[in-house]
C-alpha cells in the first residue's frame, strides 16, 4: 500500500513537472511552432480556436498537441502540415485543411516517420493530399478521424490513411471519403483495422500489399472506384466487413491476389460487379459470408488451391461462381445456393444431390469474353440446362456435396 502511495506521489510530481502551453492568436504564444520550441519533453500544448498558417510544423519532441474547438491548420496547398519524428506524440482534435500537392513527396496532413506510440485522434482533415501518412512507425493508434477529399484525378490526390513499413498499428472508427485509396498499407504487420468507413474513393477503398497478420473487422467499403484489392499477404483476417456497391467494369468487391492462410468470415458482399476475385490464393477460409445481388459471387481462378468455402449464402447473384480451369483444388461445402434445384428426402436440411455452382455459360464467358453478347439468349439457357443434366465442360469436381436447403441467418 505504501509502495503504491509513493508511486502515486512520484507520478503526481512527474505530471506536475509537465507544463501546459497554450497557443492562441491573441495570446502570448501565437504559433504552434513557437510552442513546440519552448516545450520540453512530455509537455502539453493546447491550441485554441483560430486559423493557423505555419507551413510545415515539425514535431521532433515528445509533446501532446491538443486542439480546442478545432483550430484550423492551413497547409495553403503548399506544405505538409504536421511532420512527427519523435515518439509518444499526440495530435488530437485539429481541423487540418489544404495540404500541398507534390509529385516528389508524399505530403500529408499528419505525417509520422520512424516514431512509435503515436496517438492521432479526432482530427478533421479536408482537402488533403495524403491524409495520415505513417512510415516506419510502431505501436500507434489512429482513431476517430474524418478525412474528406474531392479527388478528381488519381495523380492529384493521395491516399487517406497511408502506412508504410509499420507494425502494431490500430486504425479504428475513421471515415475516409474521396481520396485515391481509402486505406493503403505496404509492409504493415500485426495491425488492427476496425470499424472504419471507406467510400467514394477514386481507386481502392482498401489496398494492401505485403502486410501480414493484420485483422480487418467491421469496416464498411462502399462505392469505391475500383473496389478493394489486397495482395501478397498471409495471415489476413477479415470479419464482419461490408463490401457494397462496388460496381463497374473491372471493379471488384474484394480482389485477392496471392493471399494465403487467411480467414474471410461473416462478411457481407452486396451489389458488387464481382464480389470476390481470387488469383493464386491458398489455404484460406471463407466462412459465413453472404453474397447478395452481385454480378459474380466468386471468380475463382484455377491458380487457387486448398481454399475452403463453407456455410456461405449465395443469393440473387447473376453468376454464383466462375472459374477458368477444369481442375479444382478447393473445397466447397455446406453453402446455401438460391439456384439449387435439388431435393432433401430425409429432411435433414441438406440437399441430396450436389450443386454445381459454375454454369457452362460462365465458363464460356471466362474463356471467350466476346461471347458475353449472347447473355440471356435462348441458346445460352438451353446450353446451361443441358450441361446441368450431364456435366461435360464444367469442372466435375467443383461442386458442393452438401448444399443446405435453408439460408444461414447472417446478420451483419
Amino acid at each position, binding site marked *: 500500500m505504501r509502495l503504491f502511495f509513493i508511486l502515486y506521489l512520484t507520478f503526481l510530481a512527474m505530471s506536475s513537472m509537465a507544463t501546459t502551453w497554450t497557443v492562441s492568436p491573441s495570446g502570448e504564444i501565437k504559433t504552434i511552432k513557437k510552442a513546440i520550441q519552448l516545450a520540453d519533453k512530455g509537455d502539453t500544448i493546447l491550441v485554441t480556436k483560430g486559423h493557423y498558417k505555419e507551413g510545415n510544423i515539425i514535431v521532433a519532441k515528445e509533446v501532446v498537441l491538443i486542439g480546442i474547438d478545432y483550430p484550423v491548420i492551413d497547409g495553403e496547398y503548399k506544405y505538409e502540415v504536421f511532420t512527427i519524428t519523435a515518439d509518444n506524440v499526440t495530435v488530437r482534435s485539429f481541423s487540418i485543411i489544404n495540404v500541398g500537392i507534390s509529385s516528389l513527396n508524399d505530403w500529408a496532413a499528419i505525417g509520422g516517420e520512424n516514431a512509435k506510440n503515436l496517438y492521432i485522434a479526432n482530427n478533421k482533415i479536408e482537402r488533403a493530399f495524403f491524409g495520415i501518412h505513417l512510415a516506419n512507425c510502431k505501436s500507434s493508434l489512429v482513431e476517430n478521424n474524418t478525412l474528406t477529399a474531392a479527388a478528381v484525378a488519381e495523380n492529384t490526390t493521395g491516399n487517406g490513411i497511408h502506412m508504410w513499413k509499420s507494425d502494431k498499428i490500430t486504425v479504428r472508427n475513421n471515415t475516409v471519403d474521396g481520396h485515391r485509396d481509402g486505406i493503403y498499407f505496404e509492409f504493415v504487420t500485426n495491425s488492427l483495422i476496425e470499424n472504419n468507413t471507406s467510400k467514394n474513393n477514386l481507386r481502392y477503398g482498401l489496398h494492401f500489399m505485403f502486410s501480414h497478420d493484420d485483422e480487418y473487422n467491421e469496416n464498411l467499403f462502399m462505392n469505391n472506384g475500383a473496389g478493394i484489392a489486397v495482395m501478397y499477404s498471409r495471415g489476413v483476417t477479415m470479419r464482419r466487413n461490408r463490401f457494397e456497391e462496388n460496381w463497374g*467494369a473491372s471493379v471488384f468487391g474484394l480482389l485477392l491476389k496471392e493471399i494465403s492462410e487467411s480467414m474471410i468470415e461473416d462478411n457481407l458482399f452486396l451489389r458488387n460487379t464481382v464480389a470476390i476475385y481470387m488469383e493464386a490464393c491458398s489455404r484460406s477460409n471463407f466462412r459465413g459470408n453472404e453474397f447478395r445481388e452481385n454480378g459474380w459471387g466468386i471468380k475463382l481462378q484455377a491458380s487457387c488451391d486448398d481454399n475452403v468455402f463453407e456455410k456461405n449464402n449465395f443469393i440473387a447473384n447473376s453468376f454464383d461462381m466462375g472459374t477458368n480451369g477444369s481442375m479444382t483444388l478447393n473445397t466447397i461445402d455446406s453453402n446455401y445456393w438460391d439456384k439449387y434445384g435439388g431435393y432433401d428426402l430425409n429432411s435433414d436440411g441438406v440437399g441430396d444431390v450436389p450443386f454445381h455452382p459454375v454454369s457452362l455459360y460462365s465458363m464460356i464467358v471466362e*474463356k471467350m*469474353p*466476346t461471347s458475353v453478347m*449472347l447473355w440471356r439468349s435462348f441458346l445460352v439457357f438451353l446450353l446451361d440446362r443441358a450441361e446441368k443434366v450431364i456435366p461435360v465442360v464444367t469442372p466435375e469436381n467443383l461442386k458442393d456435396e452438401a448444399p443446405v436447403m435453408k439460408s444461414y441467418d447472417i446478420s451483419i
Partner: protein
Amino acid sequence: MIKIAKYVLLDILRNRFVILYTFFLFLVTLSMFSLEGNSDKAILSLLNIILMVVPLVSIIFTTIHFFNSYEFIELLLSQPINRKAIFLSEFSAVSIALCLAYVIGVGVPVTLFSQGMDTVYLIISGMLLTLVFVALAFCASVLTRDKAKGIGVSLLFWFYFTLIYDGFVLYVIYAFNDYPLDKVTLALVSLNPVDLARIIILLKLDISALMGYTGAFYKQFFGSSMGIIYSFVFLLIWAALPLSISLRKFLKKDI
C-alpha cells in the same frame, strides 16, 4: 385500303385469339412484377419471355391467319382492287392487332411498375419485333403453297432467329477467338432482330458492367443517340425487307 384493313382487323378481333394473347401477356407481366421486388430484375425475366413468345406468336398467328383468309383474298382479287392495297391492308391489320395486344398486355402493366428509359425501350423493341415477325410470316406464307408448309417455314424462321443464329455466332466467336471480335459481333448482332432487341434492352438495364470489355464497347456504341437510331432503324429494315420481298412475290403470284 383502309376499308379493307378495318374489316380484316375487326375479323381478327372477333377471332378471340388475340384477346387471349393479350390476356396471357398481361398476366405474365403482372406476375413477374409481383414475384420480383426489383423492377430491373422483373424486366430481365420479362425479357426472356418477350424474346421467345412474342416472335413465336406473331409469326405463327400471322401465317395461320394468312392461309385462313386465303379465300377472302381470292374474293378480293376478283374485284377491281389493287393487289398491293390488299396485301398492305392485310399486313397492317395483323400488325396493328398484334402490336395493340403487346402494348396492352406488356406496355401498360410495365409502365405502371417502372417508368424509366428501359421501359420505353422494352415497349418499342417489343413492337418492332412484332412487326419484324409479322413481315417474316407474310414472306413465309407467300413463298409457300399450302398451310402446313407455310407454318413449317415460319417455325424455321423462328428457330433460326432465336436459336440457330446464336449457335452460329457462338461458333464464330469460338473459331476466331484469337482476333478482336467486338466490331464483328456488333455486325453479327445487327443481322438478327432478336439479338438486337435483347442487347438494346440489356444495355439499358444497369448490368452492362457485367459484360466486361465487350459490354463497355457495346454501351459506348448503343448508348449514343446515333447507336439508338441505328438499332431502331435496323429493326425497321428487318421488318421492311421481308415485307417488300413478299409484296413483290405476291404481286406476281398465281393464286
